[in-house]
């Protein structure tokens, strides 16, 4: 069966050049970057080069980039690390948007159980955080504000620069989870004006298990992992050298072809979106269509249970997702669509399509051709309509 992968927001295939770079390191560079001798120096050089490439992707200086095990750890280090470092100052209040990834939401919940107060900001019907909502939520006790750059389910891009400015006016730190935007659209830590920024390699054709946190110079975080002095005391543990090298290679590739690839993906995504809206009755796009990352569309299908449509499409060789990959296995309504004020039935009937590097127009057209009959069949078999 010809399979079509349209779930790049869940993860991306490793770029062959990235795999080559990693294999070379796995075979040749076994040294510990902390070692003084020749072997350590070679490994350290590989890590340094990767750090520069990752920094370049986000307009940063290499020494402000901390490698982590991925987006989740980056979010944890940013929020826990900053919250705990600021604890003595009496700033015990945390703010995030209601549509954050679970890595942020559950970190806030965990801190709330330990005495921090938290505020979740509402979003409007298009999935955008209103600057005024942040203004209202901020207090003199606010330690960290965490608002994602691009949303993983609907792709909508938040006005991060403006939100960061507002947070700074009240003396709060600003963190953004840029896992779904880095490598897809320009991400520049200076232009965004943030203090902390999380990224993950496997969302831009790098390996899993490696990510990074950028932190503004001079900022103090309490480390989440305690141990050796790696990453300048900010993240203990022997460096994942092959992963770091893979992330560096992927970052360089993504940066090099970003403008061109963003244009191509926008065309593909729009073709898919318009094709589905035209071919399948009872469909609607969820979230603001601009600004949005170029590869994401989230579409509701009336009288359809998203879980069934996902399976039926997989059996046709088309890989998509309902909301985020992390919530698969539960039929919980999407917290993102819920926060956008959608009625319950519309939070359980949406499918996310996220095309990527290898997708072609012919594949998009096949999806548009296959969908109407699949949806029709499922609708015909819906004995009890999904309750509103």
């Amino acid at each position: 069966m010809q399979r079509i992968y349209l779930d790049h927001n869940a993860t991306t295939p490793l770029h062959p050049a990235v795999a080559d770079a990693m294999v070379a390191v796995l075979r040749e560079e076994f040294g510990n970057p902390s070692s003084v001798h020749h072997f350590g120096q070679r490994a350290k050089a590989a890590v340094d080069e990767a750090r520069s490439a990752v920094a370049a992707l986000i307009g940063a200086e290499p020494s402000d980039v901390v490698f982590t095990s991925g987006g989740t750890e980056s979010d944890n280090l940013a929020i826990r690390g900053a919250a705990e470092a600021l604890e003595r100052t009496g700033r015990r209040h945390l703010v995030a948007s209601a549509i954050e990834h679970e890595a942020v939401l559950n970190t806030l919940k965990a801190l709330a159980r330990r005495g921090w107060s938290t505020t979740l900001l509402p979003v409007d019907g298009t999935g955008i955080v209103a600057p005024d909502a942040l203004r209202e939520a901020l207090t003199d006790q606010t330690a960290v504000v965490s608002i994602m750059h691009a949303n993983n389910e609907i792709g909508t891009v938040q006005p991060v620069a403006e939100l960061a400015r507002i947070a700074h006016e009240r003396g709060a730190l600003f963190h953004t989870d840029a896992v779904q935007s880095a490598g897809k659209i320009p991400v520049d830590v200076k232009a965004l004006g943030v203090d902390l920024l999380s990224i993950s390699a496997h969302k831009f054709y790098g390996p899993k298990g490696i990510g990074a946190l950028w932190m503004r110079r001079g900022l103090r975080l309490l480390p989440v992992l305690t141990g050796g002095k790696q990453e300048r005391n900010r993240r203990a543990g022997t460096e994942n050298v092959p992963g770091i090298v893979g992330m560096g290679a992927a970052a360089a590739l993504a940066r090099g072809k970003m403008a061109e690839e963003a244009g191509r993906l926008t065309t593909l995504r729009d073709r898919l979106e318009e094709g589905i809206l035209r071919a399948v009755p009872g469909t609607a796009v969820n979230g603001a269509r601009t600004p949005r990352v170029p590869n994401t569309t989230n579409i509701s299908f009336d009288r359809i249970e998203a879980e069934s449509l996902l399976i039926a499409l997989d059996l046709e060789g088309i890989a998509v997702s309902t909301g985020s990959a992390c919530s698969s296995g539960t039929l919980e309504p999407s917290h993102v669509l819920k926060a956008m004020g959608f009625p319950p039935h519309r939070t359980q009937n949406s499918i996310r399509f996220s095309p990527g590097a290898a997708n072609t127009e012919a594949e998009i057209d096949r999806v548009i051709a296959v969908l109407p009959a699949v949806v029709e069949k499922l609708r015909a078999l819906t004995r009890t309509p999904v309750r509103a």
Partner: protein
Amino acid sequence: MSGGVDSSVAAALVAGQGHHAIGLSMQLYDQRDGQTFGSCCTLDDLHDARRVAHALGIPHYILNLERRFQETVISNFVREYAAGRTPLPCARCNSDLKFSTLLDRARGFGADHVATGHYARVERRPDGRWLLKRSVDPDKDQSYFLFALTQDQLAAASFPVGGLHKPAVRAEARRLGLQVADKPDSQEICFLPNGDYASFVARHEPAAPRPGPIVDERGRVLGGHAGVHRFTVGQRKGLGIAAGAPLYVLKLDAETGTVTVGPRAALERTTLTASGVNWIAVDAPAGWVSASAQIRHRHRAASGRLRALDGSRAEFIFDAPQPAVTPGQAVVFYDGDLVIGGGWID
């Protein structure tokens, strides 16, 4: 695919016959916190099902049917106990979930049949009627739990292990190298592995635990109890009453909260009526016909006479008295191995 040996071998047989097979597992209760309040389809079982499907080279999906399970099986289970009856959730699950919601979902994926690991046989008579028969393994037979399947449901059902004895099923699993070959058999009620149905009912129906009297057949009060949902007709243990001869629960009255107890002989009945009767092998028989009737999962079907009553009901008269005819359980009528039909004991 529950992750057990029976449905795993059923899947292997279907795939081995060259059918285009899709592995489906049902998630029936919330498992996000790693809770394992059920014994079937726990996270470990889903892990096993996934591995078996992978070994067989078939796709595998977990369907979240929590809401339907709650609406059909759990709510009925709780309601029945609270009403002083003894429910049979596995039979409800088969007719109202597996061969209803699950079947609909499977049809949406292009499937014509749903195959399960049940020990029973389904056959088509030359005149087109679908028949349900006991498994060839009498110890494992589960036709009792399948009596409520309609002709449409039977037409879509397939029981690949129904023609095998359990040891042969395990042998087949070993031959195929399936990791579940020696996995122990599952509990009777998947969501109550510890058998503590009384606290389960109390948790889901806080009004159920209503204290009341325990009386003898003449109405003399012998003691008290914490709610009729804690009892089943025929129950002997847990009455909390010291008496010379063993006492058994004879009757439960949810209206008055009364539990009536008496000696074993008083449990015996020669007649019963059933509601919600589903006729499989025949149309509702107007006159008396010979048949045997099974009134519990572990009951040897007893001979007698059967006739249909108005309103999807039936009456059965046993040749010899039977102990503990329990309201809420199923009565299934057989002609040898053939299921004539069945219903819910009044």
